[in-house]
């Protein structure tokens, strides 16, 4: 019989955290109340999802738990006993491990060195990497997290790097894992593998806090869900019968259309054509290796793929920001391969860049200035080299209204706006010009559901311009996205990119997350059918 007094032990040999409670946590920053009397708890053998929009206070709450922030009010208890967590060192000592959204790994060091970093060594001032390596292999066996301790981290795939992160936490005796958007960078197959491991860990008695904005994943993995909005808990309940729509409504505070309405259109002629395109990346390595695709009027072509497979370079070549080494880009039949960015603008191309803060706007310029950036040297904004401030103000006011940009004034510096409103500035600038071709790279990355819904609507409106009487044809839209849900929701056809090549182009009707995932992992369609038994 089990002795209930004996502390239960995890497979890693470390004690469990039976219950962790955060009670009445309040944390204020100058001008912002990031957390207001938030209570949250999680127990051994449980996944508790923490859900909320950007700025809802999830990160703040978790940083309080991990000792990066000190709460103004409130208490943290572990197994009923109040604890003080003043630094990550305290958190680690208490058995709390955090897997950050951006991996906290040193790429130039080996796996073992990353694991050993910051820990006392059994050999005093000398490192004991042999012992660390043994333990890494041992933990790998226990938890199914296989990784070579001698490998350097930069050599590992993203999925493997995540395993290193988890091993790092387990090595330090983590009984509770905080997972911040852990699936954001994984392919669907990697997500499945990750969930298998996660479920096993939970069965073995670990406690898990799961932060995500992917609603279907939250529903797939969690036992309980807590939703934060504006720093407060708006709901906390067992997953039970909750649906995606329920969760979205709680997060945003109103009804949200998760599946945007998409009228059926007959695509027109090809507006953007790419033929056998080759280009180098910043390191001088071939990032594009013979890419061919075409996007038609009134069509959204989704380009799926794990980032770093050439999508960024493709968008740059099309927009004249990177030279092609071979191949052709045609816009409405006209060769634009060597056309400069400045010459492209009057031809009707619009670019929504992936790095919106870096490439999409100038942070220290005002909202109005950012809104006219592309055409600032042309009438009506400028005449004979002088700005017409009245015209600029009028256009800015109109665009701020039309695109529902929330800003205190036109003269506010763009950097002071939220991510969603910054993206609206870029959309307003690019779409107000009635573009014929739109390259939208990761247009909703990091945006919250409300802003995401808006961006999707606008892109679909551009696609459907054919329906509006006064305009002849809809835009051709190349949607580059890592978010498969987004690609599936918006696209008419879906191309998958892997290591600089197009692995396949599918019609929306025949595309499933599974087959896209295989293509994203570089498995060719023919092989895929053999590799995966029909189920």
């Amino acid at each position, binding site marked *: 019989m089990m002795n209930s007094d004996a502390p239960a032990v995890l497979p890693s040999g470390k004690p469990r955290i039976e219950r962790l409670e955060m009670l009445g946590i309040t944390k204020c*920053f100058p001008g912002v109340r990031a957390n207001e009397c938030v209570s949250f708890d999680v127990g051994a053998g449980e996944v508790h999802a923490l859900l909320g929009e950007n700025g809802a206070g999830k990160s703040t709450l978790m940083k309080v738990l991990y000792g*990066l922030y000190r709460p103004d009010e409130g208490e943290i208890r572990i197994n009923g006993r109040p604890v003080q967590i003043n*630094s*990550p*060192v305290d958190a*680690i000592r208490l058995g709390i491990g*955090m897997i*950050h959204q*951006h*991996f*906290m*790994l*040193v*790429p*130039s*060091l080996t796996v073992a*060195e*990353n694991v*050993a*970093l*910051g*820990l*006392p*060594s059994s050999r005093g*001032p*000398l*490192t004991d990497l042999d012992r660390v390596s043994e333990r890494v292999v041992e933990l790998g066996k226990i938890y199914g997290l296989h990784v070579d301790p001698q490998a350097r981290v930069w050599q590992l795939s993203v999925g493997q790097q995540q395993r290193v992160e988890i091993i*790092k936490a387990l090595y330090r005796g983590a009984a509770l894992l905080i997972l911040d958007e852990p699936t954001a960078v994984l392919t669907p197959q990697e997500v499945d593998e990750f969930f298998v491991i996660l479920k096993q860990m939970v069965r073995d008695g670990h406690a898990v806090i799961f932060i995500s904005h992917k609603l279907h994943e939250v529903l797939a993995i969690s036992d309980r869900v807590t939703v934060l909005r504006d720093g407060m808990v708006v709901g906390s309940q067992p997953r039970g019968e909750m649906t995606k729509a329920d969760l979205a409504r709680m997060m945003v505070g109103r009804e949200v259309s998760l599946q945007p309405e998409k009228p059926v259109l007959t695509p027109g002629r090809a507006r953007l054509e790419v033929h056998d395109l080759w280009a180098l990346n910043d390191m001088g390595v071939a990032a594009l290796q013979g890419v061919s695709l075409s996007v038609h009027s009134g069509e959204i072509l989704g380009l799926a793929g794990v980032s770093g497979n050439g999508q960024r370079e493709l968008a740059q070549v099309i927009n004249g920001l990177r030279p092609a080494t071979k191949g052709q880009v045609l816009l409405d039949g006209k060769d634009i391969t060597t056309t400069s960015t400045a010459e492209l603008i009057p031809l009707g191309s619009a670019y929504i860049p992936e790095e919106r803060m870096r490439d999409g706007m100038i942070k220290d310029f005002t909202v109005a200035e950012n809104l006219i950036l592309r055409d600032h040297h042309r009438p009506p904004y400028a005449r004979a080299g002088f700005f017409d401030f009245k015209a600029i103000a009028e256009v800015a006011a109109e665009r701020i209204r039309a695109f529902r940009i929330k800003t205190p004034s036109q003269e506010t510096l763009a950097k002071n706006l939220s991510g969603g409103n910054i993206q609206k500035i870029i959309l307003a600038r690019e779409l107000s010009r009635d573009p014929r071709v739109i390259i939208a790279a990761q247009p909703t990355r990091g945006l919250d559901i409300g802003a995401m819904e808006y961006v999707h609507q606008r892109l679909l409106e551009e696609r459907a311009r054919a329906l509006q009487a006064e305009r002849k044809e809809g835009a051709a839209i190349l949607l580059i996205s890592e978010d498969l849900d987004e690609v599936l929701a918006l696209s008419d056809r879906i191309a998958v990119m892997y290591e600089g090549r197009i692995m396949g182009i599918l019609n929306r009707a025949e595309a499933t997350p599974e087959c896209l995932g295989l293509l994203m992992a570089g498995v060719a369609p023919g092989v895929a059918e053999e590799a995966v038994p029909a189920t």
Partner: protein
Amino acid sequence: MISELFTAQVLLGILTSGIRLATPYLYAGIGETFGQRSGVLNLGVEGQMLVGAFAAFYVARKTGNLWLGVLAALLVGALMGLAMAFISITLRAKQGISGIGFFLFGLGLSDLLFQTLLGSVQTVSGFRPLAIPLLSKIPVLGEVFFNQNLLVYGAYLLVPIAAFVMDKTTFGLKVRAVGENPEAADSLGVNVSLVRYITVTLGGMLSGLAGASLSIALLNVFQQNLTSGLGFIAVALVYFGGWRPWGVLAGALLFSMVNALQLWVQVLGLPIPSEFAVMMPYVLTIVALVVAVQRVRPPTALTKPFIREG
């Protein structure tokens, strides 16, 4: 003519002085390696060397004790290093600019002290060659390698020690991690600022020692701008050496040999303009940097102050 350079005697002379002249490069370069591996670029090495050189010279001359001179150089080097650390780590000043400020400060301070305390160029009886028993008796090479003074031996001993500390100790692991991804190190409870304070202060001490090696072991004199660019070359050597102690050693030897060569060219009165000969090490610096920088990647967080994002 040119063939005069290639007699056995002259080549041995070049080798012997090359080994000696690498000393200040090694101390300063290894110190700077630690700073840069942890993410701090200290361009003030030259200034720290000058102040260290003066302190060593002055104390050694006043007390007659060379070791007190060494101690003084370490002490003022540490103070200058601490000040650099405070400005670049705590106050997060732009490291390139504050480093140039430190150079100018060291240049001015050492000259001011020299003018007021000494007034004219004087000499001191510095460290004498110390023949290592047996080894120094090896024909030819014994004289070159094992009949040098203590500060020279110390510089060469420092190379394996530094490489060992960097690669095999927990402190070295922290230094490397902090210079590549300070956020990751911070999330594991490594005190990023403390590690950087230690490396930059250590760098200051070694720069001070590099200065002392000039003023009380190699040249045995102090004058205005004694180092004349040595400290900047030491910073360049860190790049050249790929941020590794052994690489710094290779670079230091290359530069000191070229320096020795140019000295001998002048001594022998070869028909090469002396201006051109003196220029050689600096031209080599530029060439070496262009070549080296394309070969290795600097620490990712180099010159970036660490702020725990909020």
